[in-house]
């Protein structure tokens, strides 16, 4: 069984999922996301996540078992109550960034890519907290996010090939 230390966790927003479900390479992208999620050494089964309010808006768009295999549904309730109370009525971009900072950056690999649809990056960059954390929270939109998926998948393929050679 191949386990890979990926350099960053992945948080997908609903616009990203909607965008890839219309992408000509959607089967390949979903397959790679499933692979990353299942082979993560540090966060097996939880490497790629989606917040519950985003999951709700996309779950009817495709077969739920494939969606759950690509991204794990997580909740803002996982963060400390005092922080939750501060952000619960904020916009979705702020909530995603705060969740990434509090729940994801605190665990290895301590860096998070937020995947979003093309042209959405600016909305995240406008969030005040993002400026404080711009080396730990990296926004990737559209094809830039897909490039990350391909890179992570290459890591898996390389690891698998080298492990087969040593057998």
């Amino acid at each position, binding site marked *: *069984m*191949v386990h890979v230390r990926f350099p960053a966790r992945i948080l997908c927003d609903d616009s990203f999922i909607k965008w890839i*479900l219309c992408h000509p390479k*959607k*089967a*390949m992208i*979903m*397959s790679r996301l*499933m*692979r990353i999620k*299942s*082979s993560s050494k540090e966060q097996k089964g939880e490497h790629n996540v989606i917040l519950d309010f985003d999951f709700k808006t996309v779950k009817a768009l*495709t*077969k739920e*078992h*494939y969606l*759950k*295999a690509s991204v794990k549904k997580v909740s803002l309730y996982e963060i400390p109550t005092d922080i939750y109370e501060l952000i619960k009525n904020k916009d979705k971009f702020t909530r995603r960034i705060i969740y990434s900072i509090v729940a994801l950056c605190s665990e290895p690999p301590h860096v998070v890519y937020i995947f979003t649809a093309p042209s959405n990056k600016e909305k995240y960059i406008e969030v005040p907290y993002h400026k404080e954390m711009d080396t730990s929270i990296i926004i990737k939109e559209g094809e830039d996010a897909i490039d990350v998926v391909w890179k992570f998948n290459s890591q898996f393929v390389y690891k*698998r090939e080298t492990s087969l050679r040593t057998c």
Partner: protein
Amino acid sequence: MTELSPVIEIELAEDVKGLIKYNDDVKIEEALKEKIENFDNDDLLKVTKKIGSFEILDVKKVTEELLAEEL
């Protein structure tokens, strides 16, 4: 009485093999068990189970071709 739809989950072959090996409650036909044993541990499998039980009804390897048909 209408039968409930089966449950479908995507799981690593390694985990499915472990479930069959260590859980005596799992019900599975011998031919299907052998099919699972022949998958690589890293393969992702589409596992169809009877709802509310440990009975495995069907297993397919998740491939891009399968995803292209089903997404």
